[in-house]
């Protein structure tokens, strides 16, 4: 995978497939980007699990916080990492020991760790780096266009409502042929 330029269908495929997302490094403070992303994804119907050793046992947005990935008592589809690039490798190594293994490792905007990416891809996982799933969801669902953001998508099909409110849109179907 070219990690400088992801096809839209790669991102859409991931966001349409995963259901349970563990967010490593989430902040309990409501003005932090990790909190924003967690809340947004929760509201879009994902099962969100907060991971932060300093907050273990507490609740963030009514979800129980775990100290580490291996403490989570259920399968995880995607690990979303809000840690500085140099701290990513141990998180990925821990994720790869989970049974069953997650399908996706996602590193947040500004975060890249090539070694961790290679390791995960060698085990058959999909990897995304230096992207925010909230921004990508907003971009591919057209919600972000309400903010004048260049979504870099064109379509003659109308965007689909998520069905849980007038201002929440769905991602639309993944294009199977282009889904790589």
């Amino acid at each position, binding site marked *: 995978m070219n990690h400088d330029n992801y096809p839209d269908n790669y991102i859409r495929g991931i966001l349409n497939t995963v259901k349970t997302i563990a967010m490593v490094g989430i902040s309990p403070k409501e003005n932090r980007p990790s909190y924003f992303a967690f809340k*947004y994804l929760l509201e879009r119907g994902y099962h969100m699990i907060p991971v932060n050793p300093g907050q273990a046992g507490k609740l963030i947005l009514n979800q129980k916080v775990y100290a580490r990935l291996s403490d989570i008592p259920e399968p995880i589809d995607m690990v979303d990492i809000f840690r500085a690039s140099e701290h990513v490798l141990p998180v990925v190594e821990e994720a790869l020991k989970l049974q069953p293994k997650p399908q996706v490792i996602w590193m*947040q*905007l*500004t975060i890249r760790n090539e070694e961790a990416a290679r390791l995960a891809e060698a085990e058959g996982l999909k990897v995304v780096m230096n992207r925010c799933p909230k921004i990508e969801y907003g971009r591919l669902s057209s919600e972000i266009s309400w*903010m004048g953001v260049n979504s870099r998508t*064109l*379509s003659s099909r*109308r965007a689909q409502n998520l069905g849980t409110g007038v201002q929440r849109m769905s991602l639309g179907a993944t294009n199977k042929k282009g889904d790589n």
Partner: protein
Amino acid sequence: MTGPLSGLSNHHNLGAGIECPLSTFGGTMPDAERTPGFATLSIHAGAKPDPTTGARVTPIYQTTSFVFDDVDHAAALFGLQTFGNIYTRIGNPTCAVLEERVAALEGGTAGLAVASGHAAQVIVLHALMTPGDEFVASKKLYGGSINQFNHSFKNFGWNVVWADPDDLASFEKAVSPKTKCIFIESIANPGGVITDIEAISKIARKAGVPLIVDNTLATPYLCKPIDYGADIIVHSLTKFLGGHGNSIGGLIVDGGTFNWSRDKKYPMLSEPRPEYQGIILHETFGNFAFAIACRVLGLRDLGPALSPFNAFLVITGIETLPLRMQRHCDNTLAVAEWLSKRPEVAWVSYPGLPGDKYHKLAKKYSPKGAGAVFTFGLKGGYDAGVKLVSNVKLFSHLANIGDTRSLIIHPASTTHRQLSDAQKVQAGAGPDVVRLSVGLEDPEDIIADLELGLKAK
């Protein structure tokens, strides 16, 4: 919790992917991710069919406000935690289509529509400047901008330092520790001047400040300043983007290229904002944070919102931008060539002409044409100028540019009337100067009308 922000600007990915029904391409699947061309973006960028009704043309959402799904949704919107519509002063779905359209055409990350080109400049500088700061601006600007910078902005404590685009060293000399940005026009109004964007962007980089380019006269069809190092684009939509002389409007494009967090120079972007519970906009919104800052701090609090109806008219105008701009340029070159051979004409200042001082820069920055606005001088001076504008029948005598209609003005007897002769000459508005904005009529008719005016007794 997040990593360093320095990598942000290096990873913005601006190629748009087209999602098309299979039938569009005759049943064969196109490449999964095509990069659409300029004409396609002019029609489609930002404008998917309406999600509620399926309306194909962007509806005019003529409403002040938008209902919330529930209390939590309202709170999330006000806290910038989710994307959506609250109130038309802050954002509107019709205006949003225009914003995304122009951002896509310029190759930027996001746009913000405002009430006029002047409002765009206020909002941009409001996000960058604090009282006592300086900004460097080209001397060769639209006269309205010169007034705004010299007088109104000084009342805010935003101090302009002028530099000469014909002397690049003057930009370097004008930079001081108080400088927060550099402001130029790509093709400068009243035409005839092409600014060396790339050279000035290097000076801005060295100074650690963003380069703002007013791209009104060129439009992204002729020149995309972000490709040459510009960080922020401002437009008067009133001119060629709208193109039909029916709507005032302005637009800001965030290039997504500037690192706002490198130092503490830009607290609107790099510091916790008391207006939004301590959010740091750059770390939260990444490479479109500048456009968000302009919206949620500048437009929200200063208020010059664009009417959705005006946005609709400009969106419709932009659909034909590539066709119109090429015709504007072709007509203008024909008119400039014709004028340069007339016995009544002393000089023609149009960079599209091979002998022009700015011809080389025009070939680099605006190769498809040098725009449609230019000036020329009459041997008969002031009286000849008055006579010309009084005797044309197709050209409209008025103070706008960038209309389908051909426009003419004699600055010395109108817009620059209050200045002394010496001041007029310095402003490029000497008694002999006539400015044209060449329209889309048949070039033979445009030329015949000028001939009528020149020959009149």
